[in-house]
């Protein structure tokens, strides 16, 4: 059994987008704050801190999670992916990112990181989603700028492109 005392900082280790990292956290420190302010991974945004807006969505061991509804200490030993890990290289966007850009599927971009994480995770497992599948998935995200139409279109187009290109490097990322 591990008991971590409230007032002390404890070592937390995990991999972030494939890179092993460690930092220190009090038990109550939210994973969203740990990522952003201790590790400098500010691409994951915080919009509500009660799990509704979806801006802080990341994946933990391959499953979607709201980073604001997790403690940093809970992520110890896990594999985390965030928006910073989606592009194949600093100068290139992924198929999904490129589709969002093409469709003007973002404006302020604040909610975009979470939406990308949900879509990226979903499209890895679902090659031929319908519009209603995408709308159902994205109903867990709030976007205030776009009215969603272009996000849904971009997702469907990216899905089609990924399905046509099963050897896409993205798939093995």
């Amino acid at each position: 059994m591990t008991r971590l005392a409230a007032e002390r900082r404890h070592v937390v280790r995990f991999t972030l987008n494939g890179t092993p990292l460690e930092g220190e956290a009090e038990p109550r420190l939210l994973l969203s704050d740990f990522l952003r302010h201790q590790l400098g991974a500010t691409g994951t945004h915080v919009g509500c801190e009660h799990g509704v807006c979806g801006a802080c969505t990341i994946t933990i061991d391959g499953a979607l999670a709201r980073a604001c509804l997790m403690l940093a200490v809970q992520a110890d030993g896990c594999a985390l992916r965030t928006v910073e890990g989606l592009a194949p290289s600093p100068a290139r966007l992924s198929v999904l990112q490129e589709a969002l850009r093409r469709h003007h599927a973002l404006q302020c971009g604040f909610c975009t990181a979470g939406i990308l994480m949900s879509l990226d995770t979903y499209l890895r497992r679902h090659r031929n989603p319908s519009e209603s599948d995408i709308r159902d998935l994205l109903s867990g995200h709030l976007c205030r700028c776009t009215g969603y139409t272009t996000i849904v279109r971009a997702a469907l187009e990216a899905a089609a492109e990924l399905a046509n290109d099963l050897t896409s490097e993205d798939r093995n990322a």
Partner: protein
Amino acid sequence: MSDGMSQATADAEPTQTWVGRSIPRVEDAALLTGRGRFIDDLGVRAGTLHAALLRSPHAHADIAGINSEAAKRGPGVAAVLTGTDIKALTSSLVVGVKAPVECWPIASDRVRYVGEPVAIVVASDRYRAEDAADLIEVDYRPRPAVVDPLAAIAPDAPLLHDGFPSNVASDRRFRYGDPEAAFAAAAHRISIDIRYPRNSCTPIETYGVVADYDAAEDAYDVLANFQGPFSIHAVLSRALRVPGNRLRLRTPPDSGGSFGVKQGVFPYIVLIAAAARAVGRSVKWIEDRLEHLTASVSATNRATTLRAAVAADGRILALDWDQVEDCGAHLRAPEPATLYRMHGNLTGAYDIRHVAVRNRVVVTNKTPSGLNRGFGGPQVYFALERLVQRIALTLGLDPLDVIAGNLVPADAFPYRTATGALLDSGNYQEALARGIRDGGLAELKARRAAARAAGRLYGIGYAAVVEPSVSNMGYITTVLTPAERRKAGPKNGAQATATVSIDPVGSVAVHVASAPQGQGHRTVLSQVVADVFGLTPADIRVNTEIDTAKDAWSIASGNYASRFAAAVAGTAKLAAERLAARLARIAASQLNIAADDIAFAGGMVRSRRNPDNALPFSRLAAVSHWAPATLPSDAGTTIRETVFWTPPELTAPDEQDRINSSLCYGFIFDFCGIEIDRTTLQPRIDRYVTMHDCGTILHPGMVDGQIRGGFAQGLGAALYEEYAYGPDGSYLTGTFADYLLPTTAEVPAPVILHMQTPSPFTPLGAKGVGEGNCMSTPVCIGNAVADAIGASDIELPLSPARLAALVRGPEPAPPAGLTIEAMAAGGRELRGEGSAIVNAVPVQIWAMLLNPETLKAVIPGCHSVQKISDTHFRADVTLGIGPVKGRYRAEVTLSDLDPPRAVTLGGSADGALGFGQGEGRITLTPERDATRLHYAYTAAIGGKVASIGGRLLDGAARVIIRQFFTALAREAGGGTRRGGLWAKLRALFRRR
């Protein structure tokens, strides 16, 4: 149906210009890869402290005392600042009407809305700051609150401010033409009463401020995701008691949406800046979502009575507006601007020559209002376009015929409205015709007929709307009388600024004071300037951050009133053209040709007549840096050009109160078909068509993005969103589970149509487009729903329960013997009653009720009971259900004693999660060897727990009240007959 693809986004023929094309946005790559630079993403100065705010749980109360000693001793705490501390360092914010009223960003002796700041804790991190805030004890003395604007006007209403003679902060009447005669002569007088609710466009990024104070120079340096208008800079420097040049206000490179809302960060700039001064360190504050929903800013709610004088054929001859505007607890700058923003176009898209207006501005115990997308438009058009539908119904006309019959004639532009607006351009009839044709109205009508024939609820709604853009900075002075305006001096115009500069290698940079929040300004400006210089957008680097210490800016700077395309982009074009003209002179001398023979194209500057005679643009552009002596003497340098542009059409209000409140007026014609499920009463939008004429379109993808975004927010306002308050002023929608933003599952793709009538008054012919659907969509949906269910009066948001009340007949009666408790209408008050058989005689129970030891055993979660008098006890309790627990100070009083038969038990509790008070009458009736204990209670709960747990609150309170009486019965009955008693009690408390 069509997939909503807009005509304009369909790939058009590539044109010669970059403007008008949907090029990819330069902003996107960073945002898509997590490299955006929003305020909370940026590093701060070493040693920066973090602030948390303690806020009022009461809508209206006096502050009798604040004890922050324990908080100050908390780990990591640098300071706890109260209103008194802040007042010592600042001055009141200026108020937009002439009255001896102050407006502070923090309360000191009195709170006037739930969420009003009461103390600021500054600590080493946000977690510790919140820990300390929990330790502050505030002694509130509640006052009656008023939340309804019409109730606030009543003579006996509780008064909010001693400086106003009543809760009416302003009451002005206006008269244009001869409305009395028109009403007297008209065939029909038709009116409508409207209550427009409170809502907000709620960006997903909240407010943020980082402030620093340099005592040596008495100067502030503030970074905030403020959106403008920068007229507020003057308000801020005055409040901070420094000249403008000692308040450096900067904005971060990215801002996560605003929609007007981030104008409202400005009171927090004062607070955090003053806190930085008080602690001598840099202080950062990031607002959380609960704070944002409760207390950031809101659009105004408004009560309107609109009357029309109507001819027999449906022609509207005169309007009579009576608007009561609810600005919340304080009249914060620039309010009451929401009420006056639409003043010039109160006649909408219609040719109506006689108008009477009464505008009252009212304060209530709610969050102060401020900028919000649509700003005044939703409130005005909901009344006007609902009235148009009512006129049609009353006269037996098609609503579309009433709209068409009243539109401003196509040959009348520029058209001066009765109230003073100069509608710049348009062809409303043509827009209507194209919308009907290309949007498929006939098909929608057929679907309505088929649905109705099948007994389904289906309606069609319309809205025709004029969308103002580029606000006249003088419109707000219409709230003053002409005499007051003469005294204050005229205010008008809308200064836009743009700087284009060329560096020593000839590359072009653009800076504008536009502070975008995702609208893609950098991309559009690169297109505009590339066209002028014959370059590509990739050659142009644009910066839209604002730094008031270094940049060109003015009071109209910022991102609001849809001013970018019409004013800012046009000004950048003018600045680029000025440089281009000089470059042409230089090129002419170097190429030995006349300046008018010079063309900029393909990265070259060349002769039109002899294209081979050319120079690379970059080489020419660098000349001013490297060889100024070679410039022609009359050319001037080409290093940097700043243009300030303000349109001459934006004049101050005249002596007759006519005001051209905006520069441009786009036109929108919307219609939609909506089906309402007969069982669930949930509306489903079958098709929504929105036809726009916003003048010249600079970037079709972005224009459609603005339309879709505004549509989604308008849909939210129509169906889901309301900042709800209880009658006691408690705030009820503090989370995103209660303030409902539409998601992908609720927002369909609208069908977007365009026509382009350029504005003659703007450099690019563009008009604003960002706010229109926030004005047109709520009423268009409202009209469709009213048409579907045949209702004459509807109130937003159109929740299924509201529709049910309009649609359903009488309810099936309850089974015999069952009575239903009625809650006070719309109330937060909780009532209940019940009884239990207790195994003791009345005198025994009576003795228990007066005994602190029994009370300690009976009061749920009681730690200690202190006897103040025979009938007054003070208790320290932990109350809660499930994981939700909080510690409270409770007062218990006994009154109306009738021993051993009856007593009234009063209780109140106060803690970090909120407060509650209740009263229960307990009667004891002997029944054989036992006693029937009957109780009836009322209880009210407010504060944080009401804001974020409203859905669960009543049930939770019942659990706690039940715990009390269960324990009382148990204590009295000594635990015998446990099973039977339990079962009975449980049955009772389940109201059966």
